[in-house]
């Protein structure tokens, strides 16, 4: 009877993605427990129920861990991205690029620049909100499956966007310095390219815990919440419950910041164009990803 129970429990755990070393440990402990008392099998609980308990808990913990690793990788990428953007605005600031010129306004370079900028922002927002959600739910040992799905999506989007940003950045740098210089990185001492490459590797490595976590199927009941649950009292009460109004407010705020920066760096007209593009991109991002990332229900 014990053997049948253990076999069923093992299969149920496997079905929920609890495998490998963890499953072996659980089965070893359960085996010991059941051999302590002949009647323990009856009191232990049905295999699907016990496997679900383990999966819910291990899946929640693995998801939270993956977010921490992911965010650490995003922080590295953020530094590389900031260095890259500085290089774009102030050529030569990181060495070796003082003589570099942006290769005109070639469409591919412009696209790479826009993609890098947008991907960096999506990455920051998705990763930041993923981290925020795990911090808000830190006292909840078992997260509802809907919540776990949102957190996993946020981290996946953040990492993909981070990698896209690094790729855009690399292309942009190649446009600034020319392919020959990019290929002779050690000689020219381009710290920037090394940073972008290292960040891309770190981002790719952060996928490992994300993938591991996503293998465990969490089935705990409950709802996921939205962006107002993430931000809590930061959001003024009139905006709560109105995601589109909130998104409009955030977009407007960003637009003002971009406009001000544009005026300081170049001129008002240019700043206004960038501000409008930022507002449009922000609202488009909210429309496209808002529901997927759990910003609105």
């Amino acid at each position, binding site marked *: 009877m014990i053997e049948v129970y253990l076999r069923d429990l093992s299969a149920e755990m496997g079905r929920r993605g609890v495998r490998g070393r963890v499953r072996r440990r659980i089965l070893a402990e359960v085996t010991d*427990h059941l051999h302590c008392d002949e009647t323990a099998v009856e009191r*232990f609980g049905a295999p699907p129920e016990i496997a679900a308990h383990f999966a819910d808990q291990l899946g929640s913990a693995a998801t939270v861990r993956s977010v921490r690793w992911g965010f650490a990788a995003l922080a590295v990428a953020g530094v590389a991205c900031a260095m890259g953007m500085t290089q774009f605005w102030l050529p030569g600031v990181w060495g070796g690029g003082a003589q570099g010129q942006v290769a005109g306004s070639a469409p591919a370079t412009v696209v790479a620049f826009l993609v890098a900028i947008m991907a960096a922002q999506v990455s920051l927002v998705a990763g930041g909100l993923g981290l925020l959600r795990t911090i808000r739910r830190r006292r909840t040992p078992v997260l509802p499956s809907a919540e776990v799905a949102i957190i996993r999506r946020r981290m996946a989007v953040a990492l993909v966007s981070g990698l896209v940003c690094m790729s855009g950045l690399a292309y942009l740098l190649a446009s600034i310095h020319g392919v020959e210089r990019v290929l002779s990185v050690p000689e020219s001492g381009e710290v920037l390219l090394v940073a972008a490459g290292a960040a891309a590797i770190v981002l790719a490595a952060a996928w490992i815990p994300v993938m591991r976590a996503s293998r465990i199927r969490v089935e705990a009941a409950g709802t996921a919440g939205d962006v107002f649950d993430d931000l809590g009292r930061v959001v003024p009460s009139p905006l709560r419950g109105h995601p589109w109004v909130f998104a409009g407010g955030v977009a407007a705020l960003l637009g003002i910041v971009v406009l001000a920066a544009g005026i300081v760096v170049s001129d008002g007209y240019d700043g206004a164009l960038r501000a409008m593009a930022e507002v449009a991109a922000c609202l488009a991002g909210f429309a496209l990803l808002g529901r997927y990332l759990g910003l609105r229900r």
Partner: protein
Amino acid sequence: MEPLGAVALGRPGHDMVDNALRAEVLKGHLDTLLLAAVSEEPAHGYLIVERLRSRSQGALDLGEGTVYPALYRLEAAGLLSSRWSHEPGRKRRVYRLTDRGRAALAEGRTEWRSFVRVIESVLS
């Protein structure tokens, strides 16, 4: 050691405590109960369940399998540590309280006592 669960969960024969309520109360305090069960001496899973049962004089009848996920969680939170103990013919995982676990247990006891005081003051 004082059995934490016995106060509110009642003893056999105290039918006033509804089963659903009992389960709910137990769920909210399972972590503290488990920490208390290993506070004096390290124990493996089966022994932990037995300690809870005997200290509560049978009132705490846990679904035994549900104890293990909770033990894993407490270990991951750094409140318990565990290691394999190899005895003739068997291999068992023994859990012991960490310093953080001891502090959490003290906090849990304080919370529980103040909760009981509040309920007592209302009921009496």
